[in-house]
């Protein structure tokens, strides 16, 4: 499903990723760990082409990201549900509108959008905040909206960059459980986080540990 061959990324003279090769199959739960600056976010950004200049090859469902045309880029990105580290919620739009945006961009009908958005709002416990604006919400609530937006389009892959980074342990646990629910439905999940302890004893998944842009360990978590 996702294949990386010797992927390297430089920012100026500094190597952010060095010779990363990975094979990720459909339905896997991948945990990318490592300290700050290890290259976790950069790796995720390459997958959804927020970083589009890199060395090596990346294949996603047979699409070579080095050769993807600008017209195919939206198609690629709709395969992903992305939870951004800084949430990336539009401050001038309500919670409902922020989540609906994904489905509107995919050209879904308004009746379907309404039904689907309300469904994810209920499942994240945010239905009462549908008309609220992001800046009036707490960090935990904004995180839940970000997760709701990531899952509403039922993507085949969810990329989550530090999804529990700014949350207390209870909220972090709730977010993780929510993602696990989607994983059980067959969604491939990639979580980049420095908090390895949170993942332990929760789900069977693969942990890929990065340090200074290199994979230093790959193990199965039980």
């Amino acid at each position, binding site marked *: 499903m996702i294949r990386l061959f010797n992927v390297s990324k430089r920012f100026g003279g500094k190597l952010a990723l060095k010779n990363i090769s990975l094979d990720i199959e459909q339905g896997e739960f991948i945990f990318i760990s490592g300290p700050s600056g290890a290259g976790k976010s950069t790796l995720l950004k390459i997958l959804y082409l927020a970083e589009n200049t890199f060395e090596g090859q990346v294949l996603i469902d047979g699409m070579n990201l080095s050769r993807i045309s600008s017209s195919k880029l*939206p198609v690629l990105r709709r395969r992903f549900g992305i939870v951004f580290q800084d949430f990336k919620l*539009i401050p001038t739009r309500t919670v409902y509108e922020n989540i609906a*945006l994904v489905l509107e*961009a995919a050209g879904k009908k308004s009746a379907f959008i309404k039904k689907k958005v309300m469904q994810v709002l209920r499942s994240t416990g945010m239905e009462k905040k549908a008309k609220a604006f992001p800046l009036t919400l707490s960090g935990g609530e904004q995180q839940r909206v970000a997760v709701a937006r990531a899952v509403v*389009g039922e993507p085949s892959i969810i990329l989550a960059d530090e999804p529990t980074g700014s949350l207390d342990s209870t909220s972090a646990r709730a977010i993780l459980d929510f993602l696990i629910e989607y994983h059980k439905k067959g969604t491939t999940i990639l979580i980049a986080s420095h908090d390895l302890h949170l993942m332990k004893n929760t789900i069977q998944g693969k942990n890929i540990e990065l340090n200074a842009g290199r994979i230093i360990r790959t193990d199965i978590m039980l």
Partner: protein
Amino acid sequence: MIHFLKRALADIHSNKFLNLITIITIALSILVVSVFLLFFENAGRVIESWNQGGRAMIYLKKEFNADMLPELKTKINSLGDIDEMVYISKAKALDTLKNSMASQTTFLKNLKENPLPDALEIKIRSYNNFQEVQTLAQNIKAIDIVDDIEYGQSWLGKFLKIFNLFKITGYAMCGFFFLMALFITANTVRLAFYSRMLEVEIMRLVGATETFIKAPFYIEGLIQGFLGGVLGLGALLITYLMVSSGITQSLASYVYFDLRFLSVKMVISIIFSSTFLGWFGCYLSLKQIFK
């Protein structure tokens, strides 16, 4: 489509001041252009009415005699669409002159020779502008027996030259205001775009196409252009209603003149043009941003 329209309206609502400035600028530009068009349309009709309904007087040479009349009439008829042709002999012309100057006939009575030429008065059946009359007159003047031809007021040609110069200035002004409105519309879109940079970035990241991102901006441009056009024409109509009767009354003593507002066709063209202007400003801006 409804989604884009809602989005565009919401964006206009959230950037009320900026949009209001743009709409007012477009309205002012349209107002200036429309004032010129209104002036040209009405002035054109006044000039045509001054041209005495397409009449011309042909003065004939001394060598002319009545036997030449049928051939001359045929020649003149072949040159244009002549409605009426009346022969005025020099004797008849002198009689008419004497009658009209009955109180001062001493001078005319003492005339030993009739100084007036034979003449033909013609009326052109249909003509669209002064130039048509002018061309026909030149062709008639080229006939051997014709000495001179007088069409309309002799100063009308000179006046028309000045009027045409004014018309060119008017078009230049219209072009200038069009460019100004275009520049401001393009900049409004640019500012709106930059104020929504985060939104656009997020849209791209969640898989929105360029069309999905651009469409609300285009609709916003179209709305601005349309509203600017309607507002500009509305202002012109109000001004017209306020001053038209006064102008008509003032000019009535000099010439029959019925001041008219722009035709429906012209109004539709202006609104279409201003809507296009809104769209085009948006197009230029987005083309530059997305290149």
